[in-house]
Every structure is written in C-alpha cells, then in structure tokens.
C-alpha cells in the first residue's frame, strides 16, 4: 500500500480509521499537556511517568490474569501517579535535585516492571505473550473503544484547561506569587500533573513506555519556536501532535514492517527540527541571517562614521578622498563604499569618494538614540 492508497482507505477501512483517529487524538492531547511540562521545566517528567507505569501494567495483569487493555491502563495510571508523587516528595523532602529524583524513580520503577515482565513470561499462562508490546507500543491493537476513551479524556482535559486557563498560566509563570493571591497552588499543580500522567498512560498502548515522553515534548518544543503566546503555543502543539499521529500512521501503514509508535515519534522530531531551523523569530537560520546582516550594517556604519570624522576636520563636508586614504586606516573595501553610494550617503567622482549631506547627517545621528530606544 502506498501513501495515496492509505489516504483513500483511511475513511473506509475500519482498522486504519481507528488507528489514525487514535494516534491523532493522542498526539493532540499529549501536545497540549506537553506545553505545560516543557514550560515548567519538567520535560523529563514524562519519561519518568511512562517508565513508572510499567510495573502497574504487570501487576494489573498478575491480579486479573486478563489482558483487557483498560484494566492494564488502570494499573499503569496508579503506578504512574505513585511514581510522580514520589518524585515530588523526594524533591521536597530531601536535598536531591529534581533530575536526580526523576532518574531514580524512572530506573527503580522500570527495573521493577521489567522484573515482573520476565516473571510473567515464565508463567504457564497462554495470555502472557504480548505484555511487552507496552514497551514499544503497538498501534495496531487499538480498537474503537480505546479511541472513545482517548476522545473522552481529551475532551475532559480540554474542558479543565479552558476552565482553569488563567490559574494554569499564572502558576506556570510564577508559583510563589500565585500563592500570595490566595490560590491553592497545590490543587492546580496536582490537577496539571494528574492530566499529564493520564495522557501518558493513554499513549502507552500506542507508543510504548520507552518513547512516550517524546510525544509530550516534541510537539511542545516545536510549537514554542513559532509563537510568544501561551494559548497559541498550546494550540500549535496540539496540531503538531495530531499531524505527527496521522502522518506517522500513514507512513507506517504504507510500508511493511514499520512499527507505528517510533514512526510517529520520528515525524514529531521532524517538526522539531524544522521549527528549530526555520522559525522566523527563534529559528537558527534566521538568527544567523540576522547576525550576518547586523555585522554588515555595522561595517557600513563604521565606514560612514570614519568618513564623518574626517569630514569634521574639513570645512567642506563633501571634501573628496581617495579610496586609498579610506581603507588605509581601517581596511574597508570598495564594496562597502559602493553600498554607501547606493544609499546616497557617499558620492563617487572619478576615483574620489565624498560624503553627501545626507550621509553626514546620518553619521552624526548614528547610535545616539540608542539609550532612549532601550529604556
């Protein structure tokens, strides 16, 4: 199946439609919530949560003996939440920094989860095979009820986000100040964190424990490059996330043996790469272009001001000078002078260059306005 065939089938084929919808919704909700994680400098929280969810999946299976995805995800949710609040506890109660706490909980829970998985694999239970799909995810196992669950939780998340938008925003920016205004910051914090845990757990079946954090971070990191408004950033992150889901599914469906989760993550990374390079205000490319342009302008200004200083010593400001004299001092090239001619700051007569009235006035006012611009 090639990619055009995919898009013609996506509306009619049940499996394709389910998977595409599922990954799109998942991308949207993780993108939205990921913006908050990124802005709180909790980028690694997602990684810790997803890894912390693994033992929950295993324990839920051991208790129920069934492979019902909702039961397993409930287990994941519980252990993900436990992991998250342990991390908060460690940071609060000890001298450890949050990256240490995250790393600690991540490896502890993941190690325990792996231990349980190996234990389960040794059990004489026909159901056991397939639990390890939660490691890397398997989008093909998504069924309609999974997508419904995702849609409901995304709707709920959107509702809470709109309801508490103002509270979320101020907490993200300045938590201490928020407290002095009388808001219960702990409540807001727990609310955001719980939704992040919920979104991650939702994605485990599709993307898996190991790559899940990318779903949280990549769309948000990409979105941050394009805007300076929080609402636009959250919206863009949701769009990037959703497109990553759709394109990732399309690419993996049109090739054989391409696992969906990793492809979605790769597509999201393409968004990140593109945004980092091409964003007009924060992107590397335009930043570099601005640096070069600034340097050129400065060179021009230096030449102009050099001529200005010479002109000050003459009665006639337009006293002509040979290029030799000009570049003997500072080594500026003919091309800089020619650019000044284009701007009408300098006139070329024969082989002599002279400052014009405009050039003289411009040079006199160069960089004297800086302080008023700035303050």
């Amino acid at each position: 199946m090639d990619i055009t065939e995919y898009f013609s089938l996506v509306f009619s084929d049940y499996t394709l439609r389910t998977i595409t919808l599922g990954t799109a919704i998942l991308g949207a909700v993780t993108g939205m919530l990921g913006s908050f994680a990124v802005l709180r400098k909790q980028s690694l929280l997602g990684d810790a949560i997803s890894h912390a969810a693994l033992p929950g999946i295993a324990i839920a299976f051991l208790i129920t003996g069934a492979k019902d995805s909702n039961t397993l995800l409930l287990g994941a949710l519980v252990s993900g939440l436990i992991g998250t609040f342990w991390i908060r506890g460690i940071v609060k109660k000890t001298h450890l920094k949050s990256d240490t706490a995250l790393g600690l909980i991540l490896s502890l829970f993941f190690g325990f989860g792996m231990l349980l998985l190996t234990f389960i694999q040794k059990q004489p239970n026909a159901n056991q095979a397939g639990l390890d799909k939660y490691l890397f995810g398997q989008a093909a196992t998504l069924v309609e009820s999974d997508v419904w669950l995702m849609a409901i939780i995304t709707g709920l998340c959107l509702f809470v986000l709109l309801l508490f938008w103002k509270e979320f925003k101020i907490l993200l920016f300045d938590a201490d100040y928020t407290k002095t205004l009388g808001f219960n910051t702990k409540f807001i914090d727990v609310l955001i964190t719980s939704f992040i845990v919920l979104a991650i757990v939702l994605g485990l079946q599709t993307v898996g424990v190991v790559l899940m954090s990318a779903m949280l971070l990549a769309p948000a990191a990409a979105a941050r490059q394009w805007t300076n408004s929080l609402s636009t950033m959250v919206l863009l992150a949701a769009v990037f996330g959703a497109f990553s889901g759709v394109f990732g599914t399309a690419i993996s469906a049109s090739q054989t043996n391409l696992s969906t989760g990793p492809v979605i993550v790769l597509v999201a990374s393409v968004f990140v790469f593109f945004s980092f390079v091409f964003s007009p205000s924060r992107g590397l490319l335009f930043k570099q272009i601005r640096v070069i342009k600034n340097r050129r302008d400065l060179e021009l200004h230096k030449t102009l001001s050099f001529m200005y200083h010479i002109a000050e010593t003459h009665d006639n400001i337009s006293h002509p000078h040979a290029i030799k004299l000009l570049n003997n001092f500072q080594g500026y090239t003919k091309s800089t002078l020619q650019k000044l001619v284009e701007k009408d700051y300098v006139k070329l007569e024969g082989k002599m260059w002279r400052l014009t009235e405009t050039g003289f006035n411009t040079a006199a006012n160069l960089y004297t306005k800086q302080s008023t611009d700035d303050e």
Partner: protein
Amino acid sequence: MKTKIAVKVDDLTVAYNYKPVLWDIDLEIPEGVLMAIVGPNGAGKSTLIKSILGILKPIAGSVTIYGKPYEKQRRLVAYVPQKGSVDWDFPTTALDVVMMGTYGSLGWIKRPRQKEKKAALEALEKVGMLAFKGRQISQLSGGQQQRIFLARALVQNASIYFMDEPFQGVDATTEIAIINILKELRKAGKTVIVVHHDLQTVPEYFDWVTFLNVKKIATGPVKDIFNDDNLTKTYGINYKVSIQE
C-alpha cells in the same frame, strides 16, 4: 495620634533544615512607612517576607495584618518577588503579566475583562511602560522587567506592598523611577516594605528600617536607629557609614 500597626509579626521562627533561618522575630510595622529590611546575605530577609506572605511555612509564630490573620487580609497585600525568580522566556506579553495582578480579586475561573485590562494599562502607564505593553517579556531589559513586576503589584491596589530587592540589577534611571513610585505609594498612605542591599541609599530612600540577621537586631525610624552601632551588630564587622544629609 497613635498610628495603626499594619503588619505585626510574633515569635516567627523559620528553618529550612536544622539551623533556623529566622529566630523568634517580633516585628511591628506602622502604617504608612517606607521600610527597608537590611542585613547580610543569608540573614533571612527574603525568608521573612516569604513567611509573612505564607509562601513558606514557619515552625512557629504568627502574622497579622491590621490585627487580623494574614489569610483573611490577602487582598490588602501585594508582593513583588525577586526578578530572577521567574523564567522571563515564558511565552507572554508585558500587559499579560501585569494583568496577573488582577487574578486575586477575580478569584477562581473568572476571566479578566475590560475593567481588569484598563487597570493593567493604567499600572503600566504609572511605571512608564505603556509603550511596551505588547512586548514579549524576554525582549525587555532587566530594568523594564522589574517595572513590569512593580506594575503587577500596583494593579492589586493593596495597602501593604512587600518587595524583594526591586533595585537589583537595574540602572540608575530605573532605580530613580522605582523609588519615586514607592514614595508616591507612601504619600497615598500605603505601607511599603523593601528588602534592600545598598546601605548607602537607606537614609535617602527610606524613613523606617529593620536590621535583620537571623534575629531582629533593631527596627525603627531611620533617623534614630540607622547608625554604626546597629550596622556593626548586624554585619558583624566594624561598620562605618557616612550618613549623607
């Protein structure tokens, strides 16, 4: 006429671990003063403010604002945190940050409307930042960011202002602009409490001062207690300051 006590602190003790950062602080701040809190690094100046404001939980002690517990008097109090305490690359504008000052009176869920926006714009004008209202906050200079924080507190229209080092890292122009606003607040009968580092400017800017070094060393009018004796007690070295009149 006896002046009212705006802020009263009783037996306040705060510790991060075992060692107390603040020990048994008793403090009465009269209404309408412009007070500096001075003391060496680690003296607990910021901690004192944060404990009064309920950001930090003290081990012991109580705080009252105009005779009632702080929790009931929040609306009377505004806070200007240290500029470095937030990430200025946060995706928002100057106006938006100042609007946050209205969130407290709005309460949960309710969104700011025209009225709140108008108040925020007025505060921006007061600090001379109206022209920068739409500017992304990371593109403001340090002094401008400080003014935005000040405007955010002004919008709260409080009676008591707590400011944590508002002069840190600002240039002379901004410093003068800020102190003028503080003096105007005092003129309007407000109480302003400022964590301050530059001892030289204390007599010029403030009329009330508290010396702090884990314990309260002294508190009172600048003209009475801002002397070498208290400075030496607070800073531990033989301190000589020439008080300019």
